[in-house]
């Protein structure tokens, strides 16, 4: 990096290189994740990525009922889909269970994760199969239609934070502040490959 006495210019250059070298690769991975927000914290700082609300080009028209901008649109067979989802069977208003699991928590098949209220009935939304909890995809009080993604889970045998980070299957998930260290560790190989400031050899 050329030496300059203009601090402002130096800051801008640093910011640009940060965006190009650090954010761009993250954004590419994030784009493939069925998540609407992603916060990555490393020793160098933190970046939060937020996806825009699904556009009309997604096919189905949003209903007039208020919808959260968090609602991820996941199509079957979408490339890069890394998580399983629990979708709404009933049309109604979503309510989370009082004890929504923590990120990475093991969830039994019959565990009630939330409800879809319809016609004065609370239809329980169950995990359906044993899984690890990843995230809640809709907000309390949101109107949901059939098939709408309510929860993101990991159906495999391995908890979401345990495996390699580079395959993007780790939980770069906004609500899990307490797992930051683990994320920082998991992200290292990726960051190393793009961060010239690091001493570790690239590609690990």
């Amino acid at each position: 990096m050329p030496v300059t006495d203009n601090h402002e210019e130096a800051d801008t250059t640093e910011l640009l290189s940060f965006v190009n070298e650090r954010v761009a690769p993250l954004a590419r991975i994030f784009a493939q994740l069925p998540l609407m927000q992603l916060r990555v914290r490393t020793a160098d700082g933190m970046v939060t990525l937020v996806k825009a609300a699904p556009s009309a080009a997604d096919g189905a028209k949003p209903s007039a009922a208020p919808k959260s901008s968090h609602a991820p649109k996941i199509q079957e067979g979408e490339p890069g889909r890394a998580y399983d989802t629990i979708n709404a069977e009933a049309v109604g208003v979503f309510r989370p269970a009082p004890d929504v699991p923590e990120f990475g928590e093991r969830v039994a098949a019959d565990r009630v994760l939330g409800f879809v209220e319809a016609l004065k009935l609370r239809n329980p939304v169950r995990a359906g199969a044993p899984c690890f909890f990843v995230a809640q995809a809709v907000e309390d009080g949101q109107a949901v239609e059939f098939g709408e993604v309510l929860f993101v889970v990991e159906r495999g045998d391995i908890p979401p934070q345990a495996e390699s980070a580079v395959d993007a299957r780790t939980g770069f998930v906004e609500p899990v502040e307490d797992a930051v260290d683990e994320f920082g560790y998991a992200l290292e190989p990726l960051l190393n490959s793009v961060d010239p400031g690091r001493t570790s050899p690239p590609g690990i």
Partner: protein
Amino acid sequence: MFNKVLIANRGEIALRIIRACRELDCKSVAIFSEADRNSLHVRFADEAFCVGPGPSGRSYLNVPNIISAAELAGVDAIHPGYGFLSENAGFAEICASHGIKFIGPPATAIALMGDKASAKHRMLEAGVPVIPGSGIIDSLTEAKKFCAEAGYPVLIKATAGGGGKGMRIVGRDADLAAGLTAAGGEAQAAFGNGGVYIEKLLVRPRHIEVQVLADEYGHVIHVGERDCSVQKPSHQKLLEEAPAHNLDADLRMKLYEAAVRASRACGYANAGTLEFLVTEDGKFFFMEMNTRIQVEHPVTEVVYGVDLVKWQIRIAAGERLTRRQEDIKPRGHAIECRINAEDPDKKFTPAAGRLGSVLMPGGPGIRVDTHIYTGCEVPPYYDSLLAKITASGRDRNDAISRMRRALFETEVRGLATTLGLHQRIMMNPSFVEGRTHVTWLREELLSPQTAAAGSHGG
């Protein structure tokens, strides 16, 4: 007028209702299955809710999800279209219990006319001639007794039936037992009700039906008749006309009068259709009442200048029917051809898949009701109707000329359709002379193979 109406249907009829809503300045809410996500009714409506997966039992018949969508959207009324929940008295009651107006007749009228036995009974009481028939058959002895009195051939029908399912023609005593078993089994499988009855089978009758409109204040009018004699071997209609040609003026008046009397007798309101069979010697018999809008309503709309779907909505919203009987006069003649995704050479087997190029006709006197477009997907779960082409003219010959021209312009690629069959019908001399009856198509035009499907009741 309603603020917002939910359309509990799909395909061309959903579009038809959405169009009526828009013209009435009323917001429309579509429901759709996952298989219909890219369907035009989803695009044309003001709002849309996915209510279930492809199979209609879990989507277009999913009452809890449909009512919940109606509540979320805050609609005043639900239009059921035809098929699906349109003649389901229970659904009409559920709508009412949620403070949603069902756009159709009172649930009591649906229930009464939906049960063929009770409908017939009420018509007899009202002095409307009905086809001689038995009660629900409990034993072979009972069946034999009826057949001896009425004379063969007879038709075994399911009490809960429709669409030709659970029907068998029997020509002699020896075949009666087998016919009863087959029809009962089919009815049980299709409708969950194996009850059957026997009717005298009329030989080569015409199917003539009368459209009625009634408001909720007792004003009932008829909107003329339709001839729907061109039917598939399964007794499903393929082509309809208004008015019926070569129909004796006296007989026509009797049909109208019977239709209005029948509607009054069941406490009817909204749009409905009385179906009659008319024999060559000028007798007519009540067959059934359809307590909903019919597929073939466009021919009536075109000839009588009455927007039936708008009237359905306006009547349900509590408006008075302002059209007087003396204003209802036919102008010219209209013919509707149903373009179905079915192969007429293979017993009308439905086809599903992606359509290639779709071109619909236009020009003077042509009306097209369709939901298909080039490259769209035709799901396997639903009715195979793709498009209704209606041609109108000063008289029947004029309408036929226009229909020939319209069918020439039409292109639907990628799936087998009934388009070619309609082209043959339009060129057929006995069709042009108007000599059609309910078995005409099978006898005159179909390959022996396809026609044979009919002798089993298809």
